[in-house]
């Protein structure tokens, strides 16, 4: 009896040991798995994350990495998203922003921190970042904070849009400029602004959002200079820009601008020939330009050389760099061809002063023609076939601080429409940057070349995905295959139900 009891006790002990082992092995395994995941995620998570996307939409370029690493080690750049960190990124602008910002943080060597703070939950963040309320810290925006300065970036500023399809209801993004926007914001905050540029507004012109972004990326602080009765050019103006006016400037503005040039000011003028300004001769603006012997004609260039034409009417065409400008700026030899649309001819006015130097910068083929049209687009007059200048540069020779003026007869270099369609990497836009640097006298050795990235394109060939192809897809994938399988299931069930 005693032996039996002893046996029973032995069996119970073994069961208890196995139970004990079983429970503790599970607990230990869970603990190990949890700990390993936390450590792995924290220590190697970023290092073992790889961006295999073709366009590198989720990784910053070596250009940005090098720039960030050139900042002092103790730099503390905060990128704050004024929102909860978005979880469902698909089909929102954040799908291109959130992973890229994570990459900024991972590759910055501790210089950049990315945070998400919802101002609705933490209202004090607004006051903390911008005590004076100078910036638009609306929920959903991002803030780049560095050296006690702020730059606010809206997610919608990070893309180029197809302006031909932009309506008040929908915007069709064409390129991803997230990296361009954030790296340039950091650049701007780290270097501060060296120059001041003013863009004249109130001449029925298109906006200058993208031009402003380009100027800021070169280190310019940009301000609008509205048309007024007592218009003056501020003394701190380093660069004055008249971008795409559709009406002429006033007499007062002409005097103020000429005075600005007299004092050695630099200027960019970009006009075009459109339905909004076909009858506009820009008399006062031309009077300003005559100071450096330049003139914009009241006609439009029609390119007759088929190899230059971008479409058969000849108003959208290619134009080439004129080698004469290389004597002023050798760096421009990197450019060859540009797109020119509805360009007014720019010519040497012939102001009789020997110190004035005028250079053709961008020219048509030898077979172009200048025509005038009425408001309905009907040709009313034309000039002889020859070479016309789409852009010219005028300055004074032998002066310490001469005025410098670049005139574009087309807005293909400066307009929001053009830049949004062709992005920041386009040859025209690169040339605009080079022009701004030339006028400001800054070299481009420390300039950043952040390229736009293509967006994912999921479209399929509509000639192959025809209506009948769609019907076939519908029938095969939603009816034939599932139904065939259900019939097979029924057959199997029927055969085996009695087994």
């Amino acid at each position, binding site marked *: 009896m005693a032996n039996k009891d002893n046996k029973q006790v032995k069996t119970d002990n073994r069961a208890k040991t196995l139970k004990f082992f079983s429970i503790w092995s599970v607990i230990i395994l869970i603990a190990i798995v949890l700990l390993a995941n936390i450590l792995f995620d924290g220590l190697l998570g970023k290092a073992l994350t790889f961006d295999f996307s073709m366009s590198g939409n989720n990784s910053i370029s070596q250009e940005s990495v090098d720039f960030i690493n050139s900042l002092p080690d103790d730099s503390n750049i905060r990128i704050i998203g004024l929102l909860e960190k978005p979880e469902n990124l698909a089909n929102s602008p954040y799908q291109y922003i959130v992973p890229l910002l994570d990459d900024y943080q991972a590759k910055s060597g501790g210089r950049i921190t990315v945070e998400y703070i919802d101002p609705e939950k933490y209202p004090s963040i607004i006051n903390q970042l911008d005590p004076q309320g100078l910036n638009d810290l609306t929920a959903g925006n991002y803030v780049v904070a560095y050296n006690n300065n702020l730059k606010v970036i809206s997610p919608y500023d990070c893309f180029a849009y197809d302006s031909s399809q932009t309506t008040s209801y929908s915007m069709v993004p064409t390129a991803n400029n997230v990296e361009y926007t954030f790296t340039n914001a950091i650049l701007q905050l780290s270097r501060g602004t060296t120059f001041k540029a003013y863009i004249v507004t109130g001449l029925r012109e298109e906006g200058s959002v993208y031009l402003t972004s380009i100027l800021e990326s070169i280190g310019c602080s940009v301000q609008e200079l509205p048309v007024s009765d007592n218009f003056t050019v501020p003394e701190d103006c380093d660069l004055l820009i008249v971008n795409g006016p559709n009406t002429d400037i006033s007499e007062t503005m002409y005097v103020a601008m000429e005075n600005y040039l007299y004092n050695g000011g630099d200027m960019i003028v970009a006009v075009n020939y459109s339905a909004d300004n076909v009858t506009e001769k820009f008399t006062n603006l031309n009077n300003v330009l005559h100071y450096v012997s330049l003139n914009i004609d009241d006609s439009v260039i029609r390119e007759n050389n088929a190899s230059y034409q971008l479409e058969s009417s000849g108003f959208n065409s290619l134009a080439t760099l004129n080698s004469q400008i290389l004597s002023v700026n050798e760096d421009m030899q990197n450019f060859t061809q540009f797109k020119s649309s509805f360009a007014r001819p720019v010519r040497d006015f012939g102001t009789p002063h020997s110190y004035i130097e005028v250079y053709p910068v961008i020219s048509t083929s030898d077979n172009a023609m200048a025509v005038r049209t009425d408001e309905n687009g009907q040709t009313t007059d034309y000039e002889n076939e020859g070479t016309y200048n789409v852009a010219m540069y005028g300055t004074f020779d032998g002066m310490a601080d001469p005025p410098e003026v670049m005139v574009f007869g087309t807005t293909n270099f400066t307009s929001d429409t053009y830049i949004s369609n062709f992005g920041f990497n386009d040859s025209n836009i690169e040339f605009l940057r080079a022009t701004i640097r030339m006028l400001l006298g800054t070299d481009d050795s420390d300039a950043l070349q952040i390229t736009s990235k293509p967006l994912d394109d999921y479209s399929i060939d509509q000639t192959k995905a025809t209506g009948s192809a769609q019907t076939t897809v519908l029938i095969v994938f*939603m009816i034939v295959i599932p139904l065939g399988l*259900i019939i097979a299931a029924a057959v199997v069930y029927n055969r085996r139900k009695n087994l």
Partner: protein
Amino acid sequence: MTAIFKREFLSYFRSPVGYVAIAIFSFLSGFLFYSQFSTGGVNLSSEINSLRNFFVIIIPIITMGLFAEDKKRGTEVLYYTTPVNLFSVVMGKFLAAVALFAVMFSNVFIHMIVTKACDGAVGVGVWGSVIVYFFMAFMFISIGILASAVTDSQIIAAIFCFIMILVIQLIDTISTYFGNAVTALLGNFGLNSEKAASVGSKLAEGLSWLDPFDKTQDFRFGVFSVSALMFCLSVAVVFLYLAFRVLEKKRWSQG
């Protein structure tokens, strides 16, 4: 293990279960594909990610009978009486379920071929989504196997598995509600509202760290994270081990 794998895999096709599961999957994936195809743009990553939402239906169907059926018929005793490692049994059944999943997924590979034939994009993001899909399938199938191992009723196993997967799918929402509840509670106790919100969001963040959908969401954009895959795999290992322990317990508790 190979013998068990073969037996279990073929058993899916000796009963209506395998056909029905594949039919449901085919219909759902076909619907998702057609709805994109008819609009002139096919994002296969989006289709695959949407299919992950149906784990909650498909996984219980294919895993509910794996052990519960054996228990009901009394054939489970074979696992304990034959010289076979119980972990091999668990792994064999697990791999059979995964293989059935791969067969189901062949629908999506056909969609890829159609998309490519229509000059659509089958980029790295699509392959990322495929990888994630399978790693998540590993995880959820292992949960289904545990559910099937703890009960002899297929219905209970399916419900248990359904609830587990549903909780994991909703973990992000649950964590947000949990964070808000903690914030409100701490606020009621007189804590400064921003501090309460901070504690609440930290707790919510901690809970949502367990969300595999969040960890793997960048794969669809071509960003591959080894730690996210490791998470899915390690969770699968934990649940398979749990299933093994549940079966093993029966072996020694019978003794």
